[in-house]
């Protein structure tokens, strides 16, 4: 439970403590390599074989996520 509270705390820190990066300053961020899951199909295939062989799953990134660029 402590970890969850730490997570919430970190979340609010992240929300409130960051300087706003303007859209025209995102050249580096818009590189496909900056995306967390550039190829969701390959990610799904990899997660499938890992989930079958390990006892845990989840927390690997929300579907439809991205860096919010563009």
């Amino acid at each position, binding site marked *: 439970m402590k970890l969850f509270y730490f997570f919430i705390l970190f979340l609010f820190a992240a929300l409130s403590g960051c300087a706003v990066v303007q859209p025209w300053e995102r050249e580096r961020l818009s590189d496909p*390599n900056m995306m967390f899951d550039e190829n969701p199909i390959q990610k799904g295939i990899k997660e499938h074989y890992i989930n079958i062989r390990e006892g845990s799953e989840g927390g690997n990134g929300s*579907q439809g996520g991205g860096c919010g660029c563009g």
Partner: protein
Amino acid sequence: MTQELPEEEIQVNFNSYFDNFRLNVIYPTINVTKSLDKNTSVTGSYLVDAISSASMKTKFQVDGITSATTNKYGGADDTPDELRHQVSLGVTRNFSDVTVSANGMYSTEHDYSSRTFTANISIPFAKKNTVLQLGYAGNFDKIFPQTRTWTKDRTTNSFNFGLTQILSKKIVTQLDFSLTNVDGYMLDGYQVVRIVNGFFLKTLEPVTPEKRIRKAAGIRTNFGISRLSTILLGYRYYWDTWDIRSHTAEAQFKTHLTENLNMIFSYRQYIQTRAYFFKEIYTEVEPLMAVDSKLNSGYTNDVSLGFSYKGNKENRIPVLNNEKLTFLGSIGFYHRHTDSPDWAMRMNDLYAYLISLGFKISI
């Protein structure tokens, strides 16, 4: 300003998996994404798993010890090899800055069927420096092993919460939390527990709790270390009501080797504790008994190298000069060590090799 929809494309992949437990899997996939209008996109996919499993045959031999009766209501057939078909259909729609997506999936094989529904919403804030993601996945499975006489159900409800935050012009981070509630039968139906007590040997079906609450929290951060390269670092902590705790660390290095050739190197390390009822050997019948290696304590290592090559007119080789084509490939190695031998293969270490080749074409 609206969120970008997925690109219009057809992606075809030929994936393969081979391990020292004598499991061989070939699974081609095809995925089509098409825009209906400027705010709506649909995606359809089809996957076939062709599994040749000597280990499965071993399980059948083991199962012979149990004198399992011929299956009348389950998926009885003559072969332990598998052929799984999976189809899915999804839609993504932008409502101004908010993106909503929904996806349905159906998977069927001779002893298992699965229906999944997912829904996600992404809401950007602060000039898209922050994106909040909320997701739900409902999974409804039916398990009917060909060596058993029963059919059992499993229902999984999963809620995901994500937050993607731009930290600077070169750094973006993502926080994730997932809560999953699983009810019903949580094994594959083919495993057996051996009760060993002196000269006494008895085999029984495993029994696990019929409820499991699973939680995971993760953070991933992507650093643009140069104009051509990025490094991703990630960590995830997982815990559940079966007393499994795990730590996962991952690192990825991505770089543009040329204008059209991109390379990804990934490393992932994972360590977990065992479920509270898991034992290597049972000496007496207990209310809860399990032998599944993924409920055992151990660790895994995963290394992979991938590439993508975008076709371009400068290339003189036919096909590679098609600008609409992108070629994809990867090779991976996976090692799992468990603190006691696998129940069927009697080995502590699993070594697996994964190869994937494919292409996508813009439409």
